[in-house]
Every structure is written in structure tokens, then in C-alpha cells.
């Protein structure tokens, strides 16, 4: 029941906000909506923690420790982002960037987007998973072009076309999967249910699944932002409103990776060997290297962090491709840490660009003097995202690197190269923005530092101590992904 109410809440509020989204209380309503989802998801998580995985509503929905942790993460980050967007969007509206109609649209789509993501996580059906992934794209694509200027329209168009094509390929993969399953279980919904497919996957035809996986890989991989399918990602992240960038980077990429991992588990079990894992490792590695090298050249603050998202998605993909308990644990932890950290970075980056009236990093200088909270928030975010302990990303990278060292020591130089280059590039860009004398201070922003420091505190805490329940979740997830 919780699952249905969880999905219902965001859908309901999406509908409500579509009408009242431009009122004065709308941002608060948005926060309330997201918080409600969060509360329900925590209850759901407790349920799963106590009772184990469950399948509900005619097997259409199911939840296990892998998906539930992402559900909680999604609702949590969406709630904090809603809180952040409160001040951020008010500022944008006050400066005439968005109109009342657009505010309605923005709020409605925000909730719809959350709905789509939750649906993707909770769906037991590969087809529904696909539909919700597409829905998530559709919900955000017009948010990216919210400002309706040439670059945002261009970015949105690229986002739409590239992800549309990608998702179409994923549908082909779904069809192939059904094609294989149908021979075993016959016609009907049974052939698309995870819970079912997992049971029968030894009987599935390996060759078809191999073909299917390629389409899944390219399809969902496009949404994950893996190189060379990533080209929409920097554009979309830099041109949309910052809250959208935060959820895109922090959540949507995770959901796409989630879909990909589910497919990989299926395929790997059917094919035997680690063929799918190797492909994922390849993509992960290429993404890490290319994204790290790209970081150097960036001029736009949000664009740079978009590349950093590509890099981190590459690391997670690599970890899941590697397989094995340590790497998988590391991958799960990495997804969690990355979305917490990256969304908080976007919060600060968004305010930083509001303060200086530009997203160009060359014009953002001396944040610790212009607004110390934003400045230190950004600095800590960069530290965390660069993998410096005691922040949590270090823990996950530690696990992934050591696991990789065991199985594929040959790849270590490449991984290290990427990590070092990314670290150097991030610091090279972030340090002048945060320190030194401010060039010109334009605006005062009302910075709600709560989400930033909440996220940072969580990342810090989890870097030092992983609570037992989280550990059990992860171990459960590791068990599922074996």
C-alpha cells in the first residue's frame, strides 16, 4: 500500500501544482509534497528492512533492498532540492527570468519527474520501467528549456533527441528480452516481470539476451551519460534551471544506472561469464578518462560539474561492471554519495551564479568573501566530489579501487590517471572561484544553506561510519546483484 501511496502523492501534487504552481505558497507546497514522499519512503524502507522484499499490486510493483535505498535517496534529494529551489526560483522570478505560467509548469513537472523516477524504481515490469524512464525524460526536457533562450532550447532539443533515440534503443532491448522470455513463459505480462525473469533466466536464450543487453547498454547508457553517448548531458545540465540540474545529476542518472544494472544482472546470469560486466567496465573507464580530461577546459560552472557527473557515473558503472561484493558495495555507496554531493554542489553553484549574474567561472571570484556560506559549501562539495576523505566518496572509491586492483591490476594506471586529472582539474577551477578577492559582487542571495550542509554532513558522516541498517541494505543489494 505504501508503494501506491508513494506514487500517488507525487502524482497528486503534480496535478495540484499544475494549477496553483504560481501562487506565493507554491514553493512551500512543493517542499511539503516532496517531504511527504520522503516520509512515506522511509516508512517503506522500514517495511522492507523488517519484512524483506515485497511484491504488490498484482506483481506490478515490487521493492527490494536495492531499489528501496534508491527510493529513499530519490525522495530525500528531491525534498532538499525542493527546499533549495524555493529560494532559487523566487530569485529567478523576481528577476523576471520566469513567468507565472512557467512557475506552474515548473512545479508540476518537478513532481511528475519525481513520480516517473519512483515509478521506474518500483516497477516490477521491464516495460513499465522503460515507460517511466521515457516519462522522466519527457518531464524534464521542457524544464531544461524553461528560460526559452537559444542555448536552452538547443540544449533541450539535443537532450530530447539523443535521449529519445537512446530510449528507443532500450525499447528494442526490452522487446528482445520479451522475445526470449516469451519462449519460456509464453505470452503475457509474466514475460516482463523482474521477479519472474530472475527465476527463469537460466533458461533464457543467451544470444538474444546478449543482443538485448547491447541495446539496453546503449539505451540506458545514454541516460546514464556514458561516453560517447554523453553529449546531451553537459548541455542539459548547464542550460536548465539549477534545481533541475541538481535532480538530473543527482537522481536521474542514478535511476538510469539502476535500470542498466538490473539488465546486467539478468543478462549475466543467462550468458554466464562476465561479458556484460566487461562492456560496462569499458564504458565506465572511457567515461572516466574522457570526462576527467574534459574538466580542464570548462568555462561554465554547471557544465564543469556535469562533466564531473559523467566521471562519477563512469566510476559507478565500472564498479558494477567489475562485480564482486566489494566492488558492488562500493558502486552502491558511490551512487549514494555522488547524488548527495553533486546535488549540494549544484545548490551552491546555482547561488554562486546568481550572486555574480553569470555562470562563467572566470567571473566568479572570491566566494568566501562575497558569501562565505556559499563559498565554503562549494569548497567542501568540491573536496567531497574529488574523493578526499573523510567524505564518503573516498570510502566508495577506496572500495572500488582496491577491488579493481585485485581483479584487473592492468587497468589501474588508467583509473588513477583519470582520478588525478579530475582532482587537479576540479581544484584548479574551484579554488579561484572560492578564494581570492571577489571581482564584483552583484546580488545578494537568500541562501538556504540547510540542504547543502545537511548533505555535506551526511556525506561526511557516512564516510566515517556506515550505520548498520544501511550496511544491511547494501549487503542485501549486493546479494541481489550477485
Amino acid at each position, binding site marked *: 500500500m505504501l508503494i501506491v501511496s508513494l506514487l500517488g502523492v507525487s502524482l497528486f501534487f503534480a496535478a495540484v501544482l499544475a494549477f496553483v504552481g504560481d501562487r506565493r505558497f507554491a514553493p512551500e507546497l512543493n517542499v511539503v509534497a516532496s517531504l511527504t514522499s520522503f516520509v512515506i519512503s522511509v516508512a517503506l524502507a522500514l517495511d522492507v528492512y523488517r519484512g524483506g522484499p515485497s511484491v504488490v499490486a498484482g506483481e506490478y510493483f515490487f521493492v527490494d533492498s536495492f531499489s528501496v535505498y534508491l527510493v529513499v535517496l530519490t525522495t530525500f534529494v528531491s525534498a532538499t532540492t525542493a527546499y533549495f529551489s524555493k529560494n532559487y526560483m523566487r530569485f529567478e522570478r523576481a528577476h523576471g527570468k520566469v513567468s507565472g505560467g512557467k512557475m506552474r509548469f515548473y512545479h508540476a513537472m518537478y513532481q511528475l519527474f519525481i513520480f516517473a523516477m519512483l515509478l521506474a524504481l518500483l516497477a516490477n515490469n521491464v516495460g513499465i520501467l522503460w515507460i517511466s524512464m521515457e516519462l522522466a525524460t519527457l518531464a524534464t526536457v521542457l524544464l531544461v528549456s524553461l528560460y526559452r533562450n537559444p542555448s536552452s532550447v538547443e540544449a*533541450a532539443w539535443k537532450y530530447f533527441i539523443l535521449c529519445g533515440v537512446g530510449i528507443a534503443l532500450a525499447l*528494442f532491448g526490452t522487446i*528482445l528480452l520479451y522475445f526470449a522470455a*516469451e519462449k519460456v513463459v509464453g505470452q503475457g505480462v509474466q514475460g516482463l516481470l523482474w521477479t519472474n525473469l530472475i527465476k527463469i533466466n537460466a533458461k533464457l536464450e543467451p544470444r538474444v539476451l546478449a543482443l538485448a543487453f547491447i541495446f539496453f547498454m546503449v539505451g540506458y547508457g545514454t541516460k546514464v551519460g556514458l561516453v560517447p553517448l554523453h553529449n546531451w548531458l553537459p548541455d542539459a545540465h*548547464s542550460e536548465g534551471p539549477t534545481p533541475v540540474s541538481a535532480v538530473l545529476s543527482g537522481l536521474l542518472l542514478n535511476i538510469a544506472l539502476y535500470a542498466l544494472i538490473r539488465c546486467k544482472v539478468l543478462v549475466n546470469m543467462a550468458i554466464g561469464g562476465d561479458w556484460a560486466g566487461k562492456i560496462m567496465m569499458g564504458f565506465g573507464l572511457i567515461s572516466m578518462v574522457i570526462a576527467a580530461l574534459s574538466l580542464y*577546459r570548462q568555462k561554465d560552472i554547471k557544465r564543469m560539474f556535469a562533466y564531473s557527473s559523467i566521471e562519477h557515473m563512469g566510476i559507478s558503472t565500472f564498479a558494477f561492471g567489475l562485480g564482486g561484493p566489494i566492488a558492488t558495495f562500493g558502486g552502491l555507496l558511490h551512487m549514494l554519495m555522488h547524488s548527495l554531493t553533486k546535488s549540494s554542489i549544484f545548490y551552491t553553484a546555482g547561488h554562486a551564479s546568481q550572486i555574480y549574474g553569470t555562470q562563467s567561472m572566470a567571473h566568479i571570484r572570491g566566494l568566501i568573501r562575497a558569501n562565505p556560506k556559499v563559498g565554503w559549501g562549494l569548497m567542501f562539495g568540491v573536496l567531497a566530489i574529488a574523493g578526499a576523505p573523510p567524505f564518503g566518496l573516498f570510502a566508495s572509491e577506496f572500495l572500488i579501487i582496491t577491488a579493481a586492483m585485485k581483479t584487473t591490476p592492468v587497468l589501474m594506471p588508467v583509473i588513477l590517471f583519470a582520478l588525478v586529472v579530475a582532482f587537479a582539474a576540479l581544484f584548479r577551477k574551484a579554488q579561484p572561484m572560492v578564494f581570492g578577492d571577489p571581482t564584483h559582487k552583484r546580488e545578494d542571495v537568500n541562501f538556504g544553506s540547510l540542504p547543502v550542509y545537511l548533505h555535506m554532513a551526511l556525506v561526511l558522516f557516512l564516510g566515517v561510519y556506515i550505520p548498520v541498517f544501511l550496511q544491511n541494505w547494501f549487503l542485501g543489494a549486493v546479494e541481489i546483484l550477485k
Partner: protein
Amino acid sequence: MTHGISIQLNNFLAAFILLTSFALLAQRRIYGLLVIFAWQGFFLSLSSAIVAYTADIRHLYVSAALTLLLKVIVLPYILYALINKLNIFREVEPLVNIPTTMLIGVALVIFSYHLTAPVRELSTLFTRTTLAVALSTVLLGFLMMITRKKAVTQVIGFLAMENGLFFAATSATYGMPLVVELGVALDILIAALIFGIFIFQIRTTFDTLDLTEMEKLKEDS
């Protein structure tokens, strides 16, 4: 209708679909593209109906009807209205010249055939031979998106890809479960609407629908 005839009919329709895909690649005029696209949808819907009839699967009728509605009537109409409104009947300039595109297309078909050959042997369905055509259609649609300059032609390419997917779903698997079919159809409809909105947005912000104008977001080296 006996089994044999339906197989032959279905294969025949598959051939038509492939043909229309090539026609889409070759067509220079936007209006012509629309017509061909509508025809492709029609063949698709027909094929679904035949499969539904032969294999006696109810919900495939629904998807045949959906296809007819969406792909033959609604989407071409929306696009047609858009073209009329924006007055973009000029010829579409391909980025790669047409003979080359056709040659690549032929290579893709051979590739798809080769790729699906072993899979085809496994299937028990009578429609299994059409998987190669479905894959070719998807890839040809993809190719069209790559080689055409205008936003509208990209949309048509995208929809042609979707046609290929639909064809794969009906022909290779006797159709996906209904929920999924409906969801997919809904998504496509929304997508088409968004396409429409976009084309307006592009038109108003860029004053042209030529995608070569939209190359501002890039990396300076």
C-alpha cells in the same frame, strides 16, 4: 486465411515497410516524407492486424488500431499542420548525399539480417523472419536522423525508428503485454506533442528550423 498465406502476407508487408524506410532515406521533400511515413504506419498497422488474426491474440487488435490512429492519422496530421503553419515546404537538404546514404542503408540491412539469423532459428513464431526487417527499420530511421539537417526530418526519422520498434514488438513477439503497449503509445504521443512545442520554440528563437544553426553549445578546444 490459412497460416501460409498470412506468413506470405506478413513477409510482403515487411518488405513494404523496408521499402518505405528506404523511400524515407531517399525522399527530398518534406511533404513526400510525411506521406511515406503515413504509408509505413499503415503497413505496420496492417501487419499487426494480420498477426492478431492469425495468432488469435486480442490485444494486438488494440495495438493495430492504436498504430492506425497514431501513426497514420494523428502524427502525420500534427506534422502536416505544423509544416503548413510554419510554411516549410522547401526541399530538405541531406548532410550526406543520397546515393551514399542508400549504400549505407543496404549495408545495414545485410548486417541486420546477418545478426538476427541465428536468433531467427530459435524462434517458433511464424513471424520470426521479420525481426531482421524490424532491426533494419530501426537502424535506417537512425541513419535518417543522422543525415538530415532539419528538425522536422529528425522527428520523422525518430518516428520511423519507433515504427521499427513496433514492428519488432508485433512481429517478433506477437506484441508486448497490453499495459506496456498502451504506455509506449502514450509516451510516443507525448513525445510528438513535445516535438511540436519544440519546433515552435526553435522556430521562434532561431528563426529557422535548420539544425546547423544549433551548434552553439560546444567545447572550444
